[in-house]
Structure formats: structure tokens, C-alpha cells
């Protein structure tokens, strides 16, 4: 018994002693920042190399360029999403951003509760009321939405024109309307340039796990490649890493999503359908800084530069210049409204 009490004493003393350690570079509160921004990621979102990291990148450059002070929170469980937003709102942030459609309800509630704080939701899901009209978010909440179907349309065209096969593939993550937008745009893009081409579309599952299952992604991709597909477009989070692996193994091609994913499988990523999450995040912070922030629904498509595809030194060899010319022409037609891109299957 005595030995135990001594042990407790020693540990207590060690703890108290360590409390006084002040490492150099420990954060002191910075009150001079031009704008205080809080960002809450989705559970397990950071490090996805696409969507959440895009928001991080945008915030990072806002910190450097605009002098913003950014705080990040990555929740550990479902109820932490609201808690994280609330913590930041209560700390007097100027702008609080929730990254992912899953924040929709919590952001709506909090925007009402904290009218003095500005909120923004990336991929905020706009709901319809009983009459089918769009429900406007509160005036201090900006819903940042993307027209993914437009970017998907372009990479659909590229997949056929540069892929050399009448069969192209699509691997989705979770089977939900959000991902159906990618598939719908992709299908329409394929049909637009090749009416008799077929699209093989498969989903990794019906649970959020479907966005984190590279093994399943590889399995789906391999079977598609074996059926004569040369190019697969994925919209499946880290499940796509398995698609890339399959492309590398079979010597075929894949199209990345959300961010430029060329480095994940150099030589096999034909292009990527990029969502400008970083640009949109940066833009929201900039407007908060300049005092021009407004609530409402913001939709970012080809016209606003919110979505696009990658064509640079990395993949120049994979796509013939005449294909690019054709794609740029389609892009102009979409921007001009001459091509209507469907957002549902």
C-alpha cells in the first residue's frame, strides 16, 4: 500500500513539474488577425488528398495571402460536428465553414442561433419545401455548391476521345444522389461525342465505408478493365486509390476526382475532374475579410471556374491536342448554355 502511495506521489510531482514546461513556439493567442476563420472537417476527412484537403489548401493560402487566422477541427464522431461548429461560433470566429454536405442541418440551425457569425457550407445540400421550391438558407449562411456534372461531362468526352474504346467505366463510392450527379454528367459527356458508346457504372457500396474501400475499388476496376474498358472515371474518395492501382497493374487509365490526382499513379491518370474547393474556400474567406460576404446559394460550375479538368505538362502526352480543342469547344457551349448537362441519372 505504501509503495503505491509513493508511486502516486512521484507521478503527481512529475505531472506538476511538466506543467511548467513552456516549449518555444507555443501558440500565443493572435488577436491581430484580419479575420478569424474556423473550419470543421468531416469525420476522418483530413488527408483524403482531394475534397477536405482542398478546403485546407484554400484556407492555408488565405492565411498566407489575406492574413487570416484559421482554426481547424476534425470531429471524432457524429455529434462532434455540431459541437465543433458551435465551439468555433462561440469563440467569436468571423466565419465558420463546414466541409461536406453532412453539415447541412447543423449549419442551418447554428446560423439562426448565431446571426452575428458568418457561416459557409461546402457542398451544402439545398432542400425543397412541400411545393417544390428551393428553401433559402439563412441570410448569414452561404451554401457553396458545385455543378460537378459539368466537369464530369468534359472528362466523359475525354475518356472516349482519348481512350480508344467504345466502353468506358465509372466507379462511384456510396450510391447516393450526390455521386449520381457525377455519373449523370459523365454519361452525358460520353454520349455527346459517341452515341453508341456504353458506360459501365458501378458503386462500391451503400454505406459511407464505400468512400474508404480501396480493395473494393480495385476489384471493380479490374473487372471493368477486363471487359474492354480503357478508361475509368472514379468519384469514390479513397476507394479510388484502388482504381488507380488497377490501372497501374493493367497498364490502362483512370480519371481522378476533386483534386489533381496525377501523382497517385503517374502515367495512368489521364486527367482529373477538379472541384475548386480550395478556390471557393479562399473566395469565401476573402469576402469575409473584405466585408462583402453574403448569404445565399452559390453554385460553381464551368462558368465560375468552380469545376474543370486538368491538362498540364504531366498529362500532355496522354491526350492528343485535337481532343483538347474539341473539349474546349464543348466547354464553351456549356458555358454559353447551348448544351444542357443533366444532374440526375
Amino acid at each position: 500500500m505504501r509503495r503505491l502511495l509513493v508511486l502516486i506521489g512521484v507521478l503527481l510531482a512529475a505531472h506538476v513539474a511538466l506543467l511548467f514546461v513552456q516549449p518555444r513556439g507555443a501558440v500565443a493567442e493572435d488577436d491581430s488577425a484580419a479575420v478569424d476563420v474556423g473550419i470543421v472537417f468531416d469525420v476522418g476527412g483530413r488527408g483524403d488528398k482531394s475534397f477536405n484537403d482542398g478546403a485546407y489548401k484554400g484556407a492555408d493560402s488565405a492565411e498566407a495571402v489575406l492574413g487570416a487566422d484559421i482554426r481547424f477541427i476534425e470531429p471524432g464522431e457524429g455529434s462532434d460536428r455540431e459541437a465543433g461548429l458551435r465551439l468555433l461560433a462561440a469563440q467569436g470566429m468571423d466565419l465558420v465553414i463546414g466541409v461536406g454536405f453532412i453539415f447541412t442541418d447543423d449549419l442551418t440551425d447554428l446560423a439562426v442561433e448565431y446571426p452575428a457569425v458568418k457561416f459557409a457550407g461546402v457542398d451544402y445540400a439545398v432542400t425543397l419545401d412541400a411545393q417544390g421550391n428551393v428553401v433559402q438558407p439563412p441570410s448569414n449562411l452561404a451554401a457553396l455548391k458545385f455543378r460537378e456534372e459539368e466537369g464530369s461531362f468534359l472528362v466523359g468526352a475525354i475518356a472516349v476521345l482519348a481512350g480508344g474504346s467504345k466502353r468506358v467505366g465509372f466507379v462511384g463510392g456510396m450510391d447516393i444522389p450526390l455521386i449520381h450527379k457525377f455519373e449523370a454528367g459523365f454519361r452525358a459527356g460520353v454520349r455527346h461525342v459517341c452515341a453508341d458508346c456504353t458506360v459501365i457504372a458501378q458503386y462500391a457500396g451503400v454505406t459511407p465505408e464505400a468512400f474508404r474501400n480501396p480493395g473494393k475499388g480495385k476489384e471493380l476496376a479490374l473487372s471493368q478493365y477486363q471487359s474492354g474498358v480503357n478508361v475509368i472515371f472514379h468519384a469514390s474518395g479513397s476507394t479510388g486509390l484502388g482504381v488507380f492501382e488497377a490501372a497501374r497493374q493493367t497498364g490502362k487509365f483512370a480519371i481522378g476526382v476533386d483534386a489533381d490526382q496525377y501523382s497517385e499513379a503517374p502515367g495512368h491518370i489521364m486527367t482529373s475532374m477538379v472541384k475548386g474547393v480550395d478556390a471557393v474556400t479562399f473566395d469565401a474567406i476573402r469576402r469575409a475579410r473584405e466585408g462583402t460576404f453574403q448569404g445565399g446559394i452559390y453554385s460553381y460550375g464551368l462558368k465560375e471556374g468552380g469545376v474543370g479538368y486538368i491538362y498540364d505538362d504531366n498529362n500532355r502526352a496522354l491526350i492528343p491536342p485535337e481532343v483538347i480543342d474539341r473539349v474546349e469547344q464543348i466547354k464553351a457551349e456549356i458555358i454559353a448554355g447551348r448544351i444542357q448537362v443533366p444532374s440526375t441519372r
Partner: protein
Amino acid sequence: MTTTIARRRVEEALLPPLVALLVALVVGDILIILVGQSPSAVFRLMLSGTWGNWYGFGQVLYKATTLICTGLAVSVALRAGLFNIGGEGQLAAGGFAAAVMGLALPPGTPGVVAIPVCIAAALAAGGLVGAIPGVMKARFGAHEVIVTIMLNFIVLAFLNWIVASHLHVPETLHTPEMRAGTVARLMEWVSPFHGSAVNASLFIAIIAATLVGWMLFRTRAGYELRAVGLQPDAAEYGGVRVGTVWIRTFLIAGALAGLGGINYVLGYKHYYEEGFGGGAGFLGIAVALVGRNHPLGVIIAAFLFATLSQGGLAIHALVPKQMVEVLQGVVILAVAAAVPEVRRLVSGARGGVAA
């Protein structure tokens, strides 16, 4: 002499976790220093973000509510010598059943009827999922660890499939809001709790813990349950049907974990959402271990882990999330490692040789 025995029991129960906690604190200090922050600042922020204000305190209470239930689910099973790794699936099943029941009830059903019905649904669904490994073990000798782990996958996949294919609100991962059976948030009675998710489920969880304590230590069912856990051969000799106790225990354990589902569903969001458990079922194992399988210990341990979780959010600006997870791991490891060791220190090698 009786008082000496009682005092020794209390010391044996409390001191080892205390040592473990202190070890975890010191390791935490070192980790914080390693990431270049000041331990005093981090701990101050952690404390102020949890017990230091009403909102944070409310969140701790909210998180503790689920953990009390899942911790009880593990500890009741362990008392009978069974490992219940299936808390996650049982929790989800309970939450799902409560949400569906709340949807099925006619709108405007009074709470006195709707709440008990929804709670009963949660208990029944959790109990059903829980009973499966009990039956499999008693009838076919299947090891409960494997069965419970596999059931987690099956139950979660099945529920998510139902939600995704039949029940979800478009563009979300959750079911429609319940029409009846929601329980009150504490902020409706205590306004400083404003915004925090803590709700009346907390009292239900504490009542459950009290009942479990009474059952374990004061009833014949508990007498037989603990005997099966300590010495199954002696229990069998004492006329206890061991297989029946296994099934009954898993039923109770599953129902307790299922009860945890009402915290989120009835008390907070009023719908079932995929992954709402967020690992609380698994964390229940740690809660039971740290709580030494005693209902009171489980409540204390649930508060500890809830504080760590909410505190982890509060210190996010200074310390990465992974660090908080490491700290949680250290607490679990320290307790698991320290307890038998320290117990030996305390009591000498009491009966050390008799196997």
C-alpha cells in the same frame, strides 16, 4: 475487521485506476511538449472547454450517456466471463429501432406513451442483436468474440442498406425525423445548457446503471451470473444452467447497448443516421475496463472518456486530433496493464499459487 476488509476493497478498486490515470497524464504532458505546446495551456483549455462552462459540461454529459450504456453492456457480459465486442452493432440497432418506432407512431402521440415505446424498441432491438452470440455460444459453442465482431459488420451494413435504399432523406444519410417519442433536452429546464446535446437520456442511463448494480449484486440472477463468470464449473455444480445464463447475459448486454441509441436518436437528432455511434460501442470496452466492471466505476469512466473526447475538440487548435486519440489509448493501456500488477502490489500475492 469487516471495516478493514471494506477499506481494502475500496483501495484496491480505486488506487490502480488512479495510478493509471496519472501515468496517462504524465505521458500526455510529454506528448504535448513533443508537439511544441505548453502542457499547462493545453490542459487549461481542455478543462475550460469541458467542465469549465455549461455548454462543454453538457457535451461531456451527453457523450457520457452513450458511454455509460455501452460500458455497462461490456461489463455485464464480462461479469459472466463473456467478451461483448458487439456494442457498436447493438447500439446502432437500438438507435435504429427507436427512430423507426418514432416514425411509425402517429404524430402527436403523447410522450408518456411514445417515449417508453421507443425505449422498449431500442432495448428489444439491442437485446435481439445481443442474444445471437449468446445462443450461438450456448447451443453451438461458437466463440462470442468472433460472433460479436462479425455481427457488428452485418448489423451495420444491413441497417445502412435499409436507410440508403428505403428510408433516407434525399442528399443525407439519415432517416426522416421522428414524429413522436423525443425526450427533452436539459437546456429546456436548465437554460445555461443551451445548445448542448445533453438530454433526459442521461437519467435513463444512470437508472440503468443502478438497476444493473442491483441486479448484479443483490439478486439471484446476479449471483448466478457472477458465479458463471468466476467459476463456471462451480456454478454448474450449484445448479446454474450456464448456457441459459450466457444467453440471458448477452440479452441484457445487448439491450443496454441498444439503450445507448436513444441518446442520439430520441434526445438529440430525432433521426437515425449512419455511423451515429462513432465508435462508442468499442469505447465501451475501455469504459468497462477502466470502470473495473462495476456500474459506479463505469459511470466514472464514462465521464473520463467523455471529457477526453470533448476536451479533444476544445484543444484542437493547439494539438492535432491524433494526439488526443493517442492519449485515450494510453489511458486504456495504462489501466489494462496496471490493474493486475498494482493489485498484486497492494495485497501481496494473495492466493497467488492456487490456480
